[in-house]
């Protein structure tokens, strides 16, 4: 497995001070920007990003180059970088913000130049004060050196960057909710279309990309889109940061090429299960993703392979559970999260997630009723008709259907354990 570390090379080689401007410059930082502003046109950058075929790393895996190509001609335009990272299990953007903020900034400048934006916003979740401080320091250092501000490096291109702190709301990670939040509104998702590329921040054309997506841009511009597309697998290219957590020997963030198997990711990269216990199941792509079990260990870690197996890579968060795990309790935790984070606009999500949480709670407390399994599935069906994958929606955004994933997961893989929790159910079933 030979591959370049695109995102984490600097922090791996220089763990002490990879966040500082002097270290960034000493390791080739801002060279790409200097060359690109001198020799490339915005279209040239777009061409490279399209050739790279990089899929967005925030969850939806939409190709970045194609999104940038949708940008409406109106002006001004904005770049908004999504650092709200709140999907349970996900902590990779925190590392990129904290350990290599200049890499993100260089990506932001290149992207802004490409899309014709003169103001970029970095929206960082409120619970990340240290990452925000690091990024703010980087912004100030970049202004002082002429990488930001007016007439950047003599190119005639201007860019201001504003770091904005969230207020503690997962839903603000959804791009249109994030835009509302940035406008000083409640962070409620908007109906799409119009998509942000047409009507985004202040109803102007806006590109929203994840922190990791933008952090890849300097490498892609420096090495060319084709070089990027040659790494990884056929349908999912490049490297990706995976956040490994749960019952693993070596939890943490790992940058690996796309296309490993889950077995390799869990047992080799993550070191295997703590105390050498048995693997029970794992959440492959953040709390919204349907769970995988042992039979999926040889499935490839790519967008298409995971979709075929009924789940997704989502935010890159892998949460591993061993054989001691009470899966109903684990599902309850995840559902509780979505119930708490529902913004309340859509009835199926607001009411449905709350009911799901309460019913699971009574199951856990020995007060489950024989009809509860059907009731749970019926509520799920009301949020996401047909319980299909990818989910159908009765809501403005996919938060509601996300709460369905853990329930269908335990019903598919561990129905006997759910039934065993309901007093009288198994006697009835086996009578």
């Amino acid at each position, binding site marked *: 497995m030979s591959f370049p570390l695109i995102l984490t090379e600097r922090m791996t080689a220089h763990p002490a001070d990879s966040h500082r401007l002097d270290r960034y410059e000493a390791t080739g930082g801002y060279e790409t920007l200097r060359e690109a502003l001198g020799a490339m046109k915005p279209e040239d950058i777009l061409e490279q990003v399209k050739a790279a075929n990089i899929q967005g790393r925030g969850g939806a895996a939409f190709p970045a180059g194609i999104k940038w190509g949708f940008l409406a001609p109106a002006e001004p335009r904005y770049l908004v970088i999504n650092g709200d990272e709140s999907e349970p299990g996900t902590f990779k953007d925190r590392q990129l913000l904290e*350990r290599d903020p200049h890499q993100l900034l260089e990506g932001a400048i290149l992207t802004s130049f490409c899309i014709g934006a003169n103001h970029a916003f970095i929206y960082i979740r409120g*619970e990340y004060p240290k990452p925000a401080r690091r990024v703010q320091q980087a912004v100030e250092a970049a202004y002082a050196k002429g990488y930001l501000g007016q007439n950047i490096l003599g190119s005639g291109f201007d860019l201001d960057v504003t770091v904005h702190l969230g207020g503690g709301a997962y839903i603000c990670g959804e791009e249109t909710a994030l835009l509302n939040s940035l*406008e000083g509104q409640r962070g409620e998702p908007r109906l799409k279309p119009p998509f942000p590329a047409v009507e985004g921040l202040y109803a102007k054309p806006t590109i929203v990309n994840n922190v990791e997506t933008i952090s890849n841009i300097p490498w892609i511009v420096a090495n060319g889109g084709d070089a990027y597309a040659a790494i990884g697998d056929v349908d999912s290219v490049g490297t990706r940061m995976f*956040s490994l957590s749960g019952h693993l020997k070596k939890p943490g963030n790992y940058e690996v090429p796309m296309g490993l198997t889950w077995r390799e990711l869990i047992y080799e990269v993550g070191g295997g299960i703590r105390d050498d216990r048995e693997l029970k199941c794992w959440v492959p792509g953040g709390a919204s993703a349907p769970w995988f079990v042992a039979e999926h260990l040889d499935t490839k870690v790519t967008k298409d392979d995971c979709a075929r197996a009924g789940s997704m890579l989502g935010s890159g968060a892998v949460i591993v559970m061993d054989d001691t795990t009470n899966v109903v309790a684990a599902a309850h935790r995840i559902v509780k999260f979505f119930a708490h984070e529902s913004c309340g606009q859509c009835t199926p999500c607001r009411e449905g997630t709350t009911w799901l949480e309460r019913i699971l709670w009574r199951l856990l407390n020995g007060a489950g009723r024989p009809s509860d399994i059907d009731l749970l599935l019926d509520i799920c069906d009301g949020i996401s008709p047909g319980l299909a994958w990818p989910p159908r929606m009765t809501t403005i955004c996919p938060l509601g259907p996300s709460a369905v994933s853990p329930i269908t997961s335990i019903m598919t893989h561990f129905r006997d354990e759910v039934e065993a929790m309901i007093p009288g159910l198994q006697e009835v079933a086996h009578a």
Partner: protein
Amino acid sequence: MSAASVIADWSAPNQERARRLLETYPEERSAVMPLLYLASLEHGYLTSAGMTQVAQLTGLTSAQVQSVASFYTMFKRDHVGRYLISVCTSISCYLLGADDVLAAVETETTARDGTTSVDGAFTVEHVECIGACGGAPAVQVNYELVEGVLPEKATALCKWLRETSPDVVMTDAMQKSFGGVRSFDWGIGEEQGAVAPVPAFGPYGSTGGESAR
């Protein structure tokens, strides 16, 4: 309502920060969230007076500002203790014993989840994932992170806060004394931190060295 440019009874640095924030965004309304943090810093938490002041600064109505503030969990509209202890009980931390960490914190601080201790030293809350899942179980003190906080460490952390009553709580220092497994290598530390239960972000939050009012 026409926007006021300053709030006379805010500290001079906060007035200056407010002025800069209102200039930073293409539309003033976008400054609402940062201003709500400033107002929280001024009053210790987000009081009605604070929300009215933010309305004055942005030209919104108080009702509009309240509607924004109530959407988010970090704008505290009730008294908060000197140290806000947020214990993550989301899935990855749960799998590694977060409920026991919360219980240890409740016992040591005498503040039940969602309440403030009688002496006003601590407010305890359980929170959803704080992006430290590789270093589970994780805790924040005034939003400054500590990873790998097993129950005994959580108890020691709360004891230390009560006994030494630090003016500034710093993530790197706390991690060193009370933390364990981390999500990733933190590298060299910083000497910044929070002076109040408001995220310590220079442009509109508390940072070490400056005192809260």
